[in-house]
């Protein structure tokens, strides 16, 4: 039985136990393993097998939720009762639109799935060792991860929704460090572990670390930047969190609400959420069992829309785009498969076009200072370089930035023609190209 068939069986069993005017069950079966290395050795090596059930019971317009990771009959029954009890004690919610009806699902793309058994402890250790070797042989120190995850997810509700799918990915990351503190970074995310080129990943990080030796501080100020895909992924993640959900739109804390339909960015910029893209790794439906739609969030430079779930679609009188998070969900719908449409430039061409600017491999510890303008602060990390006369002239020490992403994207100069699938902290992934921006505000130096 596949993982999603197991999840669907659990969901069906739970649905039969629950009492309410409407019932929704989200079931998951997951296997994950992560091999972590630091100081050129594997120091943490973990694996997990888990299952989970979340039940939403509706009585009238009152809703209550309960979850458990025990899938025996007695535990499921107790979970259903807790959800019903919660619903009975919740106030009526006249704005509740009802659980979603079944709808026609777009054909989910066929993607290979990582097999946690095939990419087991020995295979992951071998990959880690190959990555480490690239640093160790050059007197560098490597740290990072090699991981695999597969999860069967099923959603079933009393209106007839029955959807299930297995999703998963393998991932590898590496930080290579020089004794001076200089460092380099490389990462890979994909559905087929056979495509992980461990040697070459380790080599990329080690080369960046070597090139970063002798870094000098960057004088704070505004500079043109070329952002590598890892750095762009961070920006996309925060755009999704602050601006592309229906709740922020309704509450007018999103720039999309303030500028919808206006030409805000260059015409070359299109940002979408598209779980159905063959390159993405997300689920083809959301956690309410609604098939995901491709949503244009910024269309040819124009803020064009936000993602919705059943509640927010009804509230805003818009289409349900299929972006619900698991109930109970106080955050509203979120895009989990963001992508910037590719452009026509290579990274070398972007760098060549900059007279004096900064190349950023990735950011570190980014946070929001103002959601309305997506004003972020954070640090650069693991490969920051000064660009002079169209080439990387010398390494720079990590620098702090404080920059509105909305303002920065107004100065978009070029978009990379290739994209990388980058894993995000919340477990999602986005397709990010490199970007060249006219201005980025660096506000502080490393101590």
């Amino acid at each position, binding site marked *: 039985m596949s993982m999603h068939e197991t999840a669907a069986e659990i969901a069906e069993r739970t649905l039969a136990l629950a009492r309410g005017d409407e019932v929704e069950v989200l079931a998951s079966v997951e296997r*994950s*393993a992560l*091999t*972590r290395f630091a*100081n*050129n050795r*594997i*120091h943490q*090596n*973990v*694996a*997990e*097998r*888990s*299952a989970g059930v979340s039940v939403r019971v509706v009585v009238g317009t009152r*809703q*209550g*939720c*309960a*979850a*458990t*990771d025990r899938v025996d009959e007695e*535990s499921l029954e107790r*979970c259903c009762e807790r959800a019903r009890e919660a619903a009975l*004690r*919740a*106030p009526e*919610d006249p704005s509740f639109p009802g659980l979603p009806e079944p709808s026609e699902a777009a054909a989910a793309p066929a993607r290979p799935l990582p097999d946690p058994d095939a990419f*087991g*402890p020995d295979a992951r*250790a071998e990959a*880690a*060792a190959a990555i*480490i070797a690239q640093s160790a042989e050059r007197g560098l120190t490597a740290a*990072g*991860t090699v991981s695999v995850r597969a999860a069967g997810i099923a959603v079933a509700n009393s209106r007839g929704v029955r959807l299930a799918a297995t999703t998963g990915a393998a991932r590898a*990351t590496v930080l290579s460090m020089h004794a001076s503190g200089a460092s380099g970074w490389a990462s890979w995310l994909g559905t087929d572990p056979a495509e992980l080129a461990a040697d070459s990943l380790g080599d990329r990080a080690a080369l960046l670390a070597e090139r970063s030796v002798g870094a000098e501080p960057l004088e704070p100020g505004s500079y043109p930047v070329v952002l590598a895909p890892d750095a762009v992924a961070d920006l996309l993640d925060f755009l999704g969190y602050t601006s592309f959900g229906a709740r922020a739109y309704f*509450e*007018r*804390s999103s720039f999309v609400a303030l500028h919808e339909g206006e030409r805000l960015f260059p015409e070359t910029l299109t940002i979408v959420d598209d779980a159905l893209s063959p390159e993405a790794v997300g689920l083809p439906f959301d956690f309410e069992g609604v098939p995901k739609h491709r949503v244009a969030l910024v269309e040819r430079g124009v803020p064009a829309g936000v993602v919705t779930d059943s509640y927010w679609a009804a509230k805003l009188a818009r289409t349900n785009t299929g972006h619900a998070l698991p*109930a*109970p*969900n*106080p955050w509203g719908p979120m895009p989990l498969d963001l992508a910037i449409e590719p452009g026509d430039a290579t990274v070398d061409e972007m760098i060549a076009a900059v007279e004096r600017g900064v190349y950023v491999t990735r950011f*570190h*510890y980014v*946070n929001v*200072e*103002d*959601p*309305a303008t997506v004003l972020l*602060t954070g*640090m650069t990390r693991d490969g920051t370089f000064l660009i002079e006369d169209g080439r990387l002239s010398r390494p720079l020490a*990590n620098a*702090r930035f404080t920059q509105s992403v909305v303002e920065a994207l107004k100065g978009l100069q070029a978009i990379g023609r290739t994209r990388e699938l980058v894993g995000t902290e919340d477990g999602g992934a986005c397709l990010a190209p490199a970007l060249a921006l006219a201005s980025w*505000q660096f*506000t*502080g*130096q490393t*101590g």
Partner: protein
Amino acid sequence: MRDIALAALDAATLAGASYADARVVFERSETVSVRTGRVDAIGSSETLGLGVRVIADGAWGFAATADLSPDAIRLAAREAVALARAAARTWSAPVRLSDAPIVTDEWRAPCEIDPFSVPLDEKVALLLAADEAMRAEPLVSVTAGSLDAWSVSKVFASTEGSLIEQSHTEVGAGIEAIAVTDGEVLTRSYPNSHGGQTVQAGWEAVLALDLVGHAPRIAEQAAALTRAIPCPSTTTTVILDGSQMALQVHESIGHPTELDRVLGDEAAFAGTSWVRASGLGTLRYGSERLNVVADATTPGSIGSFGYDDEGVPAQRFDVVRGGVLAGFLSSRESAVAIGRSSTGCARASGWDRIPLVRMTTVSLEPGEWDLDDLIADTREGIYMETNSSWSIDDKRLNFQFACEIGWEIKDGKLGRMIKNPNYTGITPQFWSSLDAVCSPRHWQVWGVPNCGKGEPMQVAHVAHGAAPARFRNVQVGVAR
């Protein structure tokens, strides 16, 4: 739960582990939240599972399972040993652990009113009342409130012979009023941002917060922020309130003194530390007024326990004394690497995660100042309250914090209100500019239930005692 843990140890030993520990953890949680007059989440969760950690062939392995059948327990133990053996191929030296006492004990944290016994409708009514009180302010367009409760029971057993049962209850609550103008989002929270205050206690602690009573004040302040001045971009004196000081301690003292980070174990994700192990006893961290202790026995704190998740007893020890580095947060493995004993800071976020070096209650000791006197003693500066944003570099040196609200200080008096104030600094320089800390009357333990670390990610509940404090020559108003 004991039987499951002991069965896991037996299975690990049979599979070839030279050391094993097992944790069986049962956790209940409940959440209720409202937003602008509507209940947007009401739910509960239960999780029970087993984590087995082993040393085999000199390396670590860990496997976790929610299936607690005898077969699944054996499978987890065997998987942990297989993981250790795979890891061993990159090891140059076997894992060593500092000595720990062999303990058989039970520990329970006090809780007067079980929060799970309080009816959900009572919780909803409390939040809706606070929400309504905030919405009386016309400029406040978004309001929110949340209540959370956790109950954790766990068993720890090790092949060294320890068998420890622990249980505790936690509650968290908070409200926020948000005034949204075109292009600005201005938030005021009570009693703290990011979910409010979280403590190791029962429902009595939620009632003591008086959310409804404080709702009008924070709504008025959120509205007033729409008329407030921007933060000037300058270098000046800053006084930070206790809750912001808690986060300042968290990011720039708590994390950098985690010994696993110092030794490089967290390098790829959260980063390393500017602090070196060799700095113990000599490194100048800040001014002589800087005294920081880690205390896992602090009553009512979510950083408290009887024993850590390696079975090491809870401890109180100096981290910084008189401005000089005095101790590290450590586990058995990290401590022995510098020739020390564990300071009892190995904590796992659940049955499915390994213990990592985590903060307990890492607190800035109080000074002698009354807050009013401290402000009166300040000719010019800014007083800031309540964190809204935090960021720090991968060596825990360059930080930037933003707060919800501030006020000018002119000639010893609070003046105009400032919106979205922020400040930036470099850790040792900043702490060297500390010249005053307020007295025990202003000192309070603040819960931080969202501390992220590790891969796979673990979210820990930690805490910090702090009182308002004053810093000189701080850069404020970055990009304002």
